[in-house]
């Protein structure tokens, strides 16, 4: 227990640094909604790259991902590379650059706003926001839950779960509500760099103790000769492709990622970030997942319900380093959640509250800050009860968001898309996917392909087919996405 004070000190210092950065950012933020949500569209390369990157990385990098590598093999590195390194980069251009151009020309802040304006439909705007919040809420809850579990695990239960989750929630509310996108982006940058340094430090430390990668691999193969063979077990080609495709498209529709498409300062910033994606993905996931893989050969035993990376570090590194890594995992959770809170709040205020309930109301940036606090408190309360249904929604959130991607891409590139086509594609694919997740009689996979990928295909066909069969309503403006979009 002597180490607990030190460990809490490390985690606590980390939280205070994040808060301090938020306060500095607040001093630079004016009182407009665009500045609060989007930092006035002025983010530079390093900050944009890391804020998107850190936002992408939840606790999966430190805990669940290495656990999968430990139990099923390191092939998840390939899934990650294909998903975040290549597919997401391509979508960064196809969706992200287009949205940046459209957003800059028309002043959009949210996805729902962008679609609602083009299709002259408040209902479409509301539907897109509601679907997004439906999948986002439990996902935020899972992050708070993860933080609570991590803190109570670190202190051997001296700090109960609810205090850990509550403290994280409070810190996030403070700096998100105070500082908005600029503060979130800056803390994300700190968190992203912190995570990269930690994971490489951990890998170097463990490998130095073991005698290098060749020795670590030799020990692994001595106990488990087929473990590094590509494929087998969990990993089928259908699984690898379904997972990578579904998550890559899903990521682009997560509110906090999608909103980042609107925030780059210039084309140059988008370009640089785009070319760096594959490199960053390699730098983070190869060491993280190989640590989990090697742990298997090193005879590290993982406690029931525990995680392999902390177990490995406890065996090979001093206590303060393990605490740093827990702080790193906390950083990963917070950097995802803070951005989700901010974006969730903007979806709610701009696309649901303002259009449907109160179009005048108080100053929007003030309202948005209250929205952040309410959203965070609600997810915190939910995380105390951890209802099974919410956990299931959170776990399947990527697939749910993925259903939105193809109708949006069609809308952005095909001027023949109609409002009816959008409704059919968005609602049809959601219904199909939800049925696959929640209705036991509906299969969740088709010949090895996940319901998510099949649902995406269905959404694409519905959007194209119904658009072709229907004519645009008079309020639609098919030129919004195609006219005068040039960066200079």
């Amino acid at each position, binding site marked *: 227990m002597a180490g607990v004070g030190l460990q809490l000190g490390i985690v606590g210092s980390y939280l205070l640094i994040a808060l301090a950065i938020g306060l500095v950012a607040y001093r630079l933020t004016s009182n407009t909604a665009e500045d609060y949500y989007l930092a006035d569209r002025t983010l530079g390369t390093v900050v944009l790259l890391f804020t998107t990157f850190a936002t992408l990385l939840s606790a999966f990098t430190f805990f669940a991902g290495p656990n999968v590598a430990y139990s099923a093999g*390191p092939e998840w*590195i*390939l899934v990650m*590379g*294909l998903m975040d*390194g*290549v*597919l997401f*980069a*391509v979508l960064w*251009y*196809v969706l992200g*650059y*287009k949205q940046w*151009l459209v957003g800059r020309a028309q002043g959009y802040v949210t996805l729902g706003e962008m679609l609602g304006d083009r299709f002259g439909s408040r209902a479409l705007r509301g539907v897109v926001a509601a679907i997004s919040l439906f999948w986002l809420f439990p996902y935020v809850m899972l992050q708070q839950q993860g933080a609570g579990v991590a803190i109570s695990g670190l202190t051997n239960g001296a700090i109960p779960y609810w205090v850990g989750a509550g403290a994280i929630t409070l810190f996030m509310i403070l700096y998100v509500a105070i500082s908005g996108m600029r503060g979130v982006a800056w803390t994300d940058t700190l968190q992203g760099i912190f995570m990269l340094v930690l994971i490489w430090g951990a890998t170097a430390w463990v490998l130095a103790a073991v005698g*290098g*990668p*060749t*020795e*670590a*691999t030799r020990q692994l*193969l001595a106990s488990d*000769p*087929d473990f*590094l*063979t*590509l*494929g*087998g077990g969990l990993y089928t*080609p259908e699984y*690898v492709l379904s997972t990578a495709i579904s998550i890559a498209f899903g990521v682009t529709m997560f509110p906090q990622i999608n909103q980042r498409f609107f925030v780059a300062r210039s*084309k*140059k910033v988008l*370009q*640089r970030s*785009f*070319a*760096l*994606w*594959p*490199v960053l*993905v*390699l730098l983070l996931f*190869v060491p993280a997942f*190989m640590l989990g893989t090697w742990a298997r050969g090193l005879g590290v035993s993982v406690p029931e319900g525990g995680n392999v990376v902390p177990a490995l570090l406890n065996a090979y590194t001093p206590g303060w380093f393990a605490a740093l890594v827990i702080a790193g995992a906390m950083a990963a959770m917070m950097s995802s959640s803070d951005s989700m809170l901010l974006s969730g709040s903007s979806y709610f205020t701009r696309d649901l509250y303002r259009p449907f309930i109160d179009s005048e109301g108080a100053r929007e940036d003030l309202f948005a800050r209250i929205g952040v606090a309410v959203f965070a408190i609600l997810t915190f309360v939910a995380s105390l009860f951890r209802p099974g249904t919410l956990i299931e929604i959170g776990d399947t959130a990527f697939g749910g968001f993925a259903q939105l991607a193809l109708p949006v891409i069609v809308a952005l590139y095909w*001027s023949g898309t109609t409002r009816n086509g959008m409704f059919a594609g968005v609602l049809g694919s959601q219904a199909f996917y939800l049925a696959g997740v929640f209705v036991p009689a509906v299969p969740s996979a088709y010949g090895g392909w996940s319901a998510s990928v099949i649902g995406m295909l269905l959404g694409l066909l519905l959007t194209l087919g119904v658009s072709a069969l229907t004519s645009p309503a008079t309020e639609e403006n*098919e*030129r919004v996405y*195609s*006219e*005068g*979009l*040039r*960066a*200079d």
Partner: protein
Amino acid sequence: MVRRTEAVGWALVGGVLVAFAVPWFLWGSGQIAFGLPLWLWWHIGWMGLAAMTFRAFTRRAWGVGVETGPVDAGSGSTDADTDTEPAEPKASVRAEAGGEH
């Protein structure tokens, strides 16, 4: 039409990058080199190649298929891209000139 050919060409390049990010031809192989599986080395190399390709794309062709001219929309979508052609070299020259290193 040049822009259209260019777009198709880059789409093909993107397709190849996606297709071989996973070394399907090494499926079932357990060969090890320098302490890591051979398939992982392929992946590392491929990601490096992807990053270089993306960089080349940002310098030569950024905007292809996405940017549209100011007057083309609505007036027949098939040739919509051609309007951007004269402006493109300017845009990329400016991008180069603005590049800080």
